[in-house]
């Protein structure tokens, strides 16, 4: 991997780390402002649905798995790597769990263990190859992507759906709705409908909180930033660089497993076409949230805001009446472009001022 040169001059890691952390905060603030502005303008100009709390919670319901995937991706990106296999791992998890539940009449707990096991296995193998054998992360995870994709179609090339008949326990689980207190809306008939979230959202938020705390306050989290900021200085400080990278990949694999199970909970089916391009969405969310692909800069809270921004803009485009599918992708691409330019300009200006 190329050594990160665009972070800051100066040899002392302490100085460098403090500077990168404040970079992180700056990018996070920009993202938050844009998200709030976007949602506020949607509320003002498109009164249809954005005023209802349920609209916001629907965004969460639909993107619970993407939030978890993006968190894992952010961890790996902070250490300077990348994992492009997460989308296909999600697809593989959905397919294996569906086949396990339908064809083998397995239990729900068993399917959860399968999901975690698959994610962990991918994380451990890829982490070992990247960290200890020093392969390029892009190529290793590309192999993982190919492998997961092929394996999914080998397990079953058709869609496997879970219904009330073939697995009642799971069906009950994925239809569970948790009522959010004090938030709800009154429909046209005057009946109060409380807002709800699915179980996936709770799990996703838990993952976000745990990883946020790990990155912010634990020694491991600080090591992630140090390794991503500068490999060699981190090594000289006595940080076990290889182990840190390995742990980042394992956590990312685990997140892919959890994210895959959340996707499965939401979709209640397995198909080779599930989560197509989720890895790119996860990378895009991380970048919008202020993570740099070169490593050393990033924030889990930003990633959460990134996912929300990405899906809000999709919702805005749909409710503007531009039903055609291509407009969504073009706007998302445009937004990504603007975010990247803003980040690049802001960071460049700050560095010039520091010098």
């Amino acid at each position: 991997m190329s050594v990160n040169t665009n972070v800051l001059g100066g040899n002392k890691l302490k100085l460098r780390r403090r500077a990168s952390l404040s970079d992180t905060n700056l990018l996070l603030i920009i993202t938050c402002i844009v998200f709030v502005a976007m949602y506020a303008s949607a509320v003002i100009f498109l009164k249809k649905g954005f005023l209802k709390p349920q609209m916001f919670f629907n965004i969460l319901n639909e993107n619970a798995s993407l939030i978890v995937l993006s968190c894992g991706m952010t961890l790996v990106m902070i250490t300077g790597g990348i994992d492009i296999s997460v989308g296909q791992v999600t697809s593989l998890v959905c397919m294996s769990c569906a086949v396990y539940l339908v064809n083998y009449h397995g239990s729900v707990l068993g399917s959860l263990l399968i999901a975690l096991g698959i994610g962990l296995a991918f994380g451990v193998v890829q982490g070992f190859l990247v960290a200890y054998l020093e392969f390029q992360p892009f190529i290793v995870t590309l192999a993982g992507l190919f492998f997961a994709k092929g394996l999914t179609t080998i397990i079953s090339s058709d869609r496997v759906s879970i219904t009330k008949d073939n697995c009642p326990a799971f069906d009950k689980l994925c239809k569970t709705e948790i009522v959010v207190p004090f938030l709800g809306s009154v429909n046209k008939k005057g009946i109060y409908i409380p807002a709800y979230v699915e179980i996936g959202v709770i799990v996703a938020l838990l993952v976000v909180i745990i990883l946020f705390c790990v990155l912010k306050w634990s020694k491991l989290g600080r090591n992630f930033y140090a390794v991503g900021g500068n490999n060699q200085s981190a090594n000289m400080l006595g940080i076990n660089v290889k182990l840190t990278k390995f742990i980042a990949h394992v956590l990312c694999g685990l997140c892919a497993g959890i994210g895959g199970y959340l996707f499965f909970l939401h979709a209640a089916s397995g198909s080779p076409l599930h989560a197509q391009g989720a890895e790119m969405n996860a990378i895009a969310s991380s970048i919008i949230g202020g993570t740099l692909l070169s490593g050393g800069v990033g924030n889990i809270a930003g990633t959460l805001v990134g996912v929300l921004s990405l899906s809000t803009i999709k919702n805005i485009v749909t409710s503007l009446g531009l039903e055609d599918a291509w407009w969504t992708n073009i706007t998302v691409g445009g937004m990504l472009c603007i975010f990247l330019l803003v980040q690049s300009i802001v960071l460049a200006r700050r560095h010039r001022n520091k010098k």
Partner: protein
Amino acid sequence: MSTNDLTISSKKSFKSFLGKVVHNQLFIPLVALLLLVLFNLAADWFLHADTSFFQIVLKPSSTGSKILTGNLITIIDNASELALLAVGMTLVTSAAGGQDISVGATIAIAGSTVLRIVKGYSPDISGGKFAVVIICSFLLCVVVSAAFGAFNGALVAFFKIQPMVATLILFTAGRSIAAWINNNDNISINDERFGYFGNFIPGIAIPTPVFITAICLIIIALVLKFTNLRLYAQSVGINSSSSRLNGINPKIIKLITFIILGICVAVCGFIKVSRTSSITYAVIANNIEMDAILAVALGGNNLGGGKFNMTSSVIGAYVIQFLTTTLFRMKVSSSAISAYKAVVVILLIIMSSPFIRRWLDDRKSRREAARVTKAEAALEAAVEVAGDVAADVTADVNAGKESV
């Protein structure tokens, strides 16, 4: 004594020759090609196939003219686009130190542009005019692709965004832009002359994409031979700031490599739509970016930028197509192919990893050290023996003297 020396030196030169071969960049792709050929020969032998994998037949096609058919022709034909992409991708990888993941989407844009122009004219125009339409559409698609390449390049060079992230924008939006160009209509061209560029020209037995790719490869080879592009791209990739101090403008070089990739993509898009005379925006050239990056990696080039070997990248592209065709021959379904490809990728990265290389070098140096100590020991022993002999001789002489 002298003959012994000679054998040793010849052994050494053979070993150094072997070392040179193994360390050559062409070694990995060529060995992979050789393995695939051997595998297919073995499969021919064991499966008692009626027709060999390597058989090439001259058959009359559906239109009546005679064409060459056979697996080898299919491989060379289908790998045309991949080889072109590998060329552009190698340059981008070398100068920018990252990969362009938007090539598949840009192929869709280029193809959509071509179809829009050609469809705009009625299908029953005469020969000369048709040629003008084709040439115009091709030129426009080159301009459009080069512009998108320049967009990527500008993000990478001037705004210092990592190539993978910068090209993520077009990766997301590209296919939608392609659909937008044609208002999401399913366009197909009924004129059979349009299909000449992706299939066969009547009277010529070899598929046209092979010629197009050959011409492009020759042009690229000439450019690399007679300009400083290779040197500049490599120096920018190895150390951008020191090459700037030496009077090279790294931003312009990066931009140029992305524009060249854009032109390669335009040619690919043209071939792709000509093959089917139609376009499916979501499917055309799907996942081709991964194959292109794989071709560069298979060629032994460092994906972090710097030195590159164009020949081995191109061979890498053909090896990937060879692998795909071999898997089809073994009746692997097209959707499960990627699992087998993953195994190849893993083997590949294990073979070319710095870790394994270091381990091999360690072993080599240790063996050499062992040899040196052995030789020293042998020398010492020889000296001792010589000393003993000399002592014996002197003793004998002394004894003789005494006896005399």
